[in-house]
């Protein structure tokens, strides 16, 4: 590679060092190596793949729902099956795809983008993935065994309580949420630490890329929002399994407590999915408009403001519950005001495109589609933030239309743009532009054909979560149109899958930097080596690769016989310490299995809370005991000067 040879020529390393680095940082071979991997890229790739599989499953559930609703009085699904399908669709998309895919992308990209070798807590990272996988498997095993949840992804009590949802279905839901929360919290913590303490020297906070800012804000939102749903699902599990009365009004409990706890999490949850998507957009636009982003500071402030304000909106999901006028007014005001930072972002992006020289490659097409769909979804959002209007639109298909425009438009579209943008980096191969354009146009058209009619259906009285409707309502034609659109979306996803498979088999090799981008990950090979950068780069400007000087300064003197990470200071990223990361281990998987036994077993017997921790303890022992093992000792030349 060019850079290695340059470094060799400059006398920074001898050729044997690269082999030494590879030996130090590589994982263990074979299937065992796959189970014990702690390389953030390895964990992230399987994480992304797993979330995408859940996306496909959620999409199949959606197709089934739409087939059922295509005609009045259709008999494809009976009410019980329909309830399970729409609950699975929502739970899968929100808990198993929405948040995890954003975290998975961040786990892959953030260490590369900040110029470090691995994520801050590699074994914890692996543990987080395994716990997430167990949660997903729990949910789908339940679904396959007629024990899938059926009270909606939001699971309102008393319907989901012990009396009206007998059996284990809701307990499966509650524990799935527990597992995905743990995984999200784990990822949030390690991403925050990576961003604050492991940045390459010279990457002071004002030189942090916008995507990294978006992840930093998102992770703080996760830290404060996830505990709310953890508490709610715990209280529900207690009501169902232990006999408490948290939500039982007859004994002093309150069904509204569930709603408050759930939506205090639920509203930030959609911002957890949305904020990283704006980060993707802020990375793609400068590269494809070939101009630095206009309004960098405003964009950072908008991200932070969005993060804060997202906690002040949750009651807008409860406008019809009879809350007092003052509360309604406050949450209307907050819900309208969050449009201001979002507007700042959109206007800055449009300004950058105007001032730049856009090239309409697939990543930018998805960004443009995002802006259009997000604007439409944001406008219906302003509409439903208005209480009187929401009192008509709430729990109708108007909301279904709104939420899908913002979810698909503002989250999935940037995600696909990110897939097309970073696929070459992750795999070393380019995706086909022709197929990419088919993907985009089918998807964009399909979304509009599916969801635009739903606005009208909602205003015409079609409520949500209904397994059928009578012919006299006149809802048939628009529903049929929506079902056709759903199949267009499915076709576009198929095109994407074909694109991916063909590229993996024989796509054009990508090279280090096919797009002419500016963030650090484009300064290493595609795919990156296990140690990310042979030498940690020194960052000289906000647009690291565009603003570096010809001599391309790097950090010298890091050890190659130990897994050394450079820690830097929080504000100015000056070198602070060297830290040796732990290596691959089976302990995270064992610990995750123990956690799985605890919580899954807990659905059936309280003894699981004894057995599980007993299994966890040895796993943690192995984890801690092998933490400091390194492939080799520090050599005298590597001692700090």
């Amino acid at each position: 590679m060019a850079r290695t040879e340059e470094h060799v020529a400059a006398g920074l390393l001898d050729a044997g060092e690269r082999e030494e680095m590879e030996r130090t940082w590589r994982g263990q071979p074979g299937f065992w190596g796959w189970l014990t991997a702690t390389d953030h890229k390895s964990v992230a790739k399987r994480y992304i793949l797993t979330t995408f599989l859940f996306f496909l499953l959620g999409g199949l559930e959606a197709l089934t729902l739409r087939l059922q609703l295509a005609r009045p009085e259709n008999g494809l699904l009976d009410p019980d099956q329909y309830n399970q399908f729409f609950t699975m669709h929502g739970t899968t998309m929100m808990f198993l795809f929405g948040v995890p895919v954003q975290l998975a992308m961040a786990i892959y990209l953030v260490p590369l983008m900040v110029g470090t070798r691995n994520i801050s807590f590699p074994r914890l990272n692996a543990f987080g993935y395994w716990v997430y996988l167990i949660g997903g498997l729990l949910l789908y095993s339940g679904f396959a065994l007629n024990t899938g949840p059926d009270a909606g992804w939001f699971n309102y009590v008393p319907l989901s309580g012990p009396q009206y949802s007998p059996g284990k279905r809701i307990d499966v839901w509650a524990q799935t949420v527990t597992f995905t929360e743990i995984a999200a919290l784990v990822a949030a913590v390690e991403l925050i630490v990576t961003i604050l303490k492991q940045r390459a020297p010279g990457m002071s906070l004002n030189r942090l890329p916008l995507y990294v800012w978006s992840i930093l804000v998102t992770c703080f939102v996760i830290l404060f929002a996830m505990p709310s749903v953890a508490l709610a699902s715990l209280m529900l599990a207690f009501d169902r399994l232990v006999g408490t009365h948290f939500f039982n009004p007859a004994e002093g409990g309150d069904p509204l407590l569930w709603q408050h706890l759930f939506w205090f999490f639920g509203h930030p949850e959609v911002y957890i999915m949305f904020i990283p998507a704006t980060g993707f957009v802020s990375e793609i636009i400068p590269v494809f408009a070939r101009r630095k982003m206009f309004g960098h500071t405003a964009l950072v402030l908008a991200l932070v403001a969005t993060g804060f304000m997202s906690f002040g909106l949750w009651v807008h999901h409860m406008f019809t519950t009879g809350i007092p006028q003052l509360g309604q007014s406050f949450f209307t005001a907050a819900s309208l005001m969050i449009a201001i930072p979002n507007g700042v972002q959109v206007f800055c992006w449009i300004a950058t495109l105007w001032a730049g020289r856009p090239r309409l490659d697939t990543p930018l097409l998805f960004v443009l589609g995002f802006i259009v769909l997000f604007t439409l979804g944001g406008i219906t959002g302003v509409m439903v933030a208005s209480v009187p209007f929401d009192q008509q639109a709430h729990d109708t298909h108007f909301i279904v239309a709104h939420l899908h425009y913002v979810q698909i438009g503002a989250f999935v579209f940037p995600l696909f743009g990110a897939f097309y943008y970073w696929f070459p980096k992750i795999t070393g191969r380019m995706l086909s532009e022709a197929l990419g354009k088919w993907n985009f146009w089918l998807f964009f058209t399909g979304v509009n054909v599916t969801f635009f009619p739903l606005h009208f259906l909602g205003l015409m009285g079609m409520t949500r979560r209904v397994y059928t409707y009578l012919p006299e309502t006149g809802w048939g034609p628009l529903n049929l149109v929506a079902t056709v659109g759903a199949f267009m979306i499915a076709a576009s996803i198929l095109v994407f899958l074909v694109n991916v498979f063909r590229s993996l088999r024989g796509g054009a090799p990508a090279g280090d930097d096919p797009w002419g981008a500016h963030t650090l990950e484009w300064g290493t090979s595609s795919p990156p080596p296990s140690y990310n950068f042979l030498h940690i780069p020194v960052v000289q400007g906000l647009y690291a690769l565009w603003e570096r000087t010809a001599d391309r300064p790097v950090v010298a003197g890091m050890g190659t016989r130990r897994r050394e990470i450079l820690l830097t200071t929080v504000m100015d990223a000056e070198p602070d310490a060297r830290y040796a990361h732990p290596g691959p281990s089976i302990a995270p998987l064992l610990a995750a299995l123990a956690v799985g036994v605890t919580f899954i077993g807990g659905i059936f017997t309280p003894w699981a809370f004894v057995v599980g921790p007993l299994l966890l303890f040895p796993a943690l022992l192995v984890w801690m005991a092998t933490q400091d093992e390194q492939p080799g000792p520090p050599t005298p030349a590597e001692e700090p000067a």
Partner: protein
Amino acid sequence: MRAAAAGTALLLAGCGRELSSVNPAGPQAERISDLTWYLTATGTAVFLAVTGFLLYAVWRGRRRAESAAGPAAERTLTRWVAGSVAATVVILLATLVYNFYVGRSLADFAEPGALTVRVTGHQWWWEVQYQDPVYSRRLTTANEIHVPVGRRIRLEVQSADVIHSFWAPNLHGKLDLIPGYGGTTYFRADRPGVYHGRCAEFCGLQHAKMDFLVIADPPERFAAWYDQQLRAAAPPADSVQQKGQQVFLGKGCVMCHTIRGTPANSRVGPDLTHLASRRTLAAGSLPNTRGHLAGWVVDPQKIKPGARMPPNQLASDELHALLGYLQSLK
């Protein structure tokens, strides 16, 4: 957007239809409908503006030889972005103020002495009780609410089991029925008509088929209806109806239903005293005809799987008699 043209046509077709949020029959729904049109118009304008700017920006950018950088470009962009943000703030503030005004006028619709109707939500039907100050004039019925035109109605809602939501879009926004809470709202129907309503909070297996009717009559017709409903059930007029009443009292019907004037007095299911005067059966799922009634009585699980009413195996002569009796309950 391509569906916008088709959809607009369909929407306009929906304007004359019942069960529509934009076809108000009373002042509450009308204020909300006006707000809806304002929001739609403003929103459409904003959407067209933003999309227009976006498309123009891309078109303009692709015509450049090199990017517009430097202080002059920054100043221009700053002016445009700041202006757009300012416009956003203004539009949002205006919307907020209009919202406060509408919310206030909706809430100020209370009136002492309004006709009070208490609706209790069950899985999956609506119990309706008119709260007359004279206790003997309290009427209990199910799934169909008659109101006099032009008079304010006070609606009190409560739930017997899970969360439901009372929604008659032509009259008012929805109000949730939450166990442990009592909700209250006011509405008025300004023209006679039959207004459909639905349950609007997922409440289990038959949430989809939990409809009701609000029928607004001129005041005299309403009073006549009310007096008729207060009467006990007419005694059987002939031997077929007599036998039908015996079937009703001898089988499982009496375990759940009330027919005032007979020993049947259970409150588990809807009150059937004046069943034949209603337009629909099974919470709006079926028209009230002999054939549909027969199908419902014999096998409700076929029409509403999961409903609390069990199948009833009846001999054909028993069924014939029962239907005759039930259809006499006007």
